[in-house]
């Protein structure tokens, strides 16, 4: 390539000089020789130049041979056997291995990126990501433990009417009633102070406490005032849901069974009040479901089973308490449907949380690719060392 470029940039004079020199040294091909002799025949100046060059070549060739001023033999006492040339034997193999490894690495990363992009566009989650999801969820839960405690505390404070509007004394009373009632029901599972319970909490998704706490606050602020009976009922519901959040969060520390029992008991208490609405019941039901998911150490199949069980039981309670409620109708009684829904939810959550983000800040590289990349780098370094040794010697 370089040769071609150099030929393109040569002037006619340079080309002629090269042909002339090659002709003198008998290094032209037969075809070029014939062509050059044709040129010689037609160009007198070229013939003169040829003669001058011939004279110079003869003069240089006839420079006297110089005898070596001394002998250059080696001292046998100083020099032993020549060192084996492992560098020279390994260098070509190393070069090939380096190039080969680099091609594999590039191909692997390209395929991985291509497949990842396809998965993203088609909604398929790679098994690596799904496998990583529980571990990363656990890490996130550890990090957000403090947030959880804060949320639970916030919900508890809402229950104790610290954040209730001052202009709603009727609501305050209602809340106190519900708190007393609920406290009696869920006493075995609820710590006296939510803040004190925080250190006992096991890692669980922050979303659980936040959703339930939000459900707790929503009815209190959402009273429309059309009916004086509606507001107290919603306050009760909100306060009750907040208490459920605390119960769920604390109970998660013990076991998934206790969590479910807490949630279901809360649902039963909710049913007992008979003054709540679908929203509060939904929050309670959601709490039961989230409680089942709270134990991230449990296998996905167990989580799905427990969730289905919890939802079925909660639905049954709600159905008994509110025969006319629409909520009971939308609860999936079919366990297979619940399992299917959970099985779909888990990878989707994992995907939302982990597929979008690069792994270790290295794009789509997985551990095998990182290892291969490091191997390629090591090979390149070793080859460069060998190359320098070869060149030096």
């Amino acid at each position, binding site marked *: 390539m370089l040769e071609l470029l150099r030929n393109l940039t040569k002037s006619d004079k340079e080309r002629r000089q090269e042909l002339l020199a090659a002709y003198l040294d008998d290094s032209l091909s037969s075809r070029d020789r014939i062509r050059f002799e044709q040129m010689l025949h037609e160009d007198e100046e070229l013939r003169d130049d040829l003669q001058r060059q011939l004279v110079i070549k003869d003069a240089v060739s006839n420079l006297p041979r110089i*005898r070596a001023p001394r002998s250059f033999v080696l001292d046998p006492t100083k020099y032993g056997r020549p060192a084996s040339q492992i560098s020279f034997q390994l260098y070509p193999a190393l070069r090939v291995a380096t190039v080969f490894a680099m091609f594999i690495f590039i191909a692997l990363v390209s395929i991985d990126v291509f497949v990842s992009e396809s998965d993203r566009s088609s909604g398929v989650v790679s098994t690596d990501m799904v496998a990583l999801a529980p571990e990363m969820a656990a890490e996130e839960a550890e990090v957000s433990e403090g947030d959880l405690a804060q949320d639970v505390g916030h919900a508890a404070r809402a229950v104790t009417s610290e954040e209730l509007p001052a202009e709603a004394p009727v609501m305050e009373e209602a809340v106190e009633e519900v708190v007393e009632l609920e406290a009696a029901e869920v006493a075995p599972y609820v710590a006296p102070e939510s803040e004190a319970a925080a250190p006992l909490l096991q890692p669980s998704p922050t979303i659980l406490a936040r959703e339930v706490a939000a459900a707790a606050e929503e009815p209190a602020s959402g009273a429309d005032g059309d009916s004086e009976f509606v507001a107290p009922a919603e306050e009760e519901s909100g306060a009750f849901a907040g208490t459920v959040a605390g119960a769920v969060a604390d109970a998660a520390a013990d076991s998934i069974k206790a969590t479910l029992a807490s949630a279901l008991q809360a649902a039963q208490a909710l049913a007992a009040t008979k003054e709540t609405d679908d929203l509060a019941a939904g929050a309670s039901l959601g709490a039961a479901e989230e409680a089942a998911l709270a134990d991230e150490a449990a296998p996905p199949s167990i989580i799905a089973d427990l969730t289905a069980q919890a939802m079925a039981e909660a639905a049954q309670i709600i159905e008994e308490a509110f025969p006319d409620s629409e909520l009971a109708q939308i609860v999936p009684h079919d366990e297979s449907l619940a399992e299917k829904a959970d099985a779909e939810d888990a990878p989707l959550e994992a995907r939302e949380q982990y597929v979008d983000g690069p792994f270790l800040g290295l794009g789509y590289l997985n551990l095998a690719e990182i290892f291969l990349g490091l191997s390629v780098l090591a090979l390149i370094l070793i080859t460069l060392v060998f190359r320098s040794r070869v060149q030096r010697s």
Partner: protein
Amino acid sequence: MDEQGLIKQAKNGDVGAYNTLVLHHQNAVYNVAYRILGDPASAADASQEAFISAYKALGRFRGGNFKSWLMRIVTNACYDELRRVKRRRQSSLEEITDENESSALLISDKGPQPEEHQGRTELVHAIEGCLEGLPDDQRVAAVLCDVEGYDYSEIAGIMSVSLGTVKSRISRARAKLRDCLQEFRELLPLQYRHQS
């Protein structure tokens, strides 16, 4: 001389066998070094260095033309020496030619007549001077081609460059030598003078 046999023995650590090879090739090696460097002392150093390097690297030699392989090593040694000389700034044409007159021993000295000897010596000095004026790469190519008689492909192997590069360097070297020797036309054969 069984060159391949000696090389095999030398590879096994027989320094005596290697010295036989050294004695056989040392004049050619020194001659190339001298024509490239233009200085007898530097040429001797480069030659010695080349023979030592060749012995150490003998395991790398995998057959073929041993002399060409040796020339490649001495050429590299000359490049190293040129770099050293340039750093020391000791390169002086006058010093080289003076020393050459006093120390160089001409192998093919057949004892010409005094006038002829003087004219020839002047021509040799003129050519050496013009060779000295060439860029290093062109000088090496010209020496290997015109002084040592290697063909283009051998020179390409010795200098580790492409055939086209060799052609280009030789042609440029000859063009510069031609221009340089215009100043010494009277020393050149009549044929040259008539054409100039």
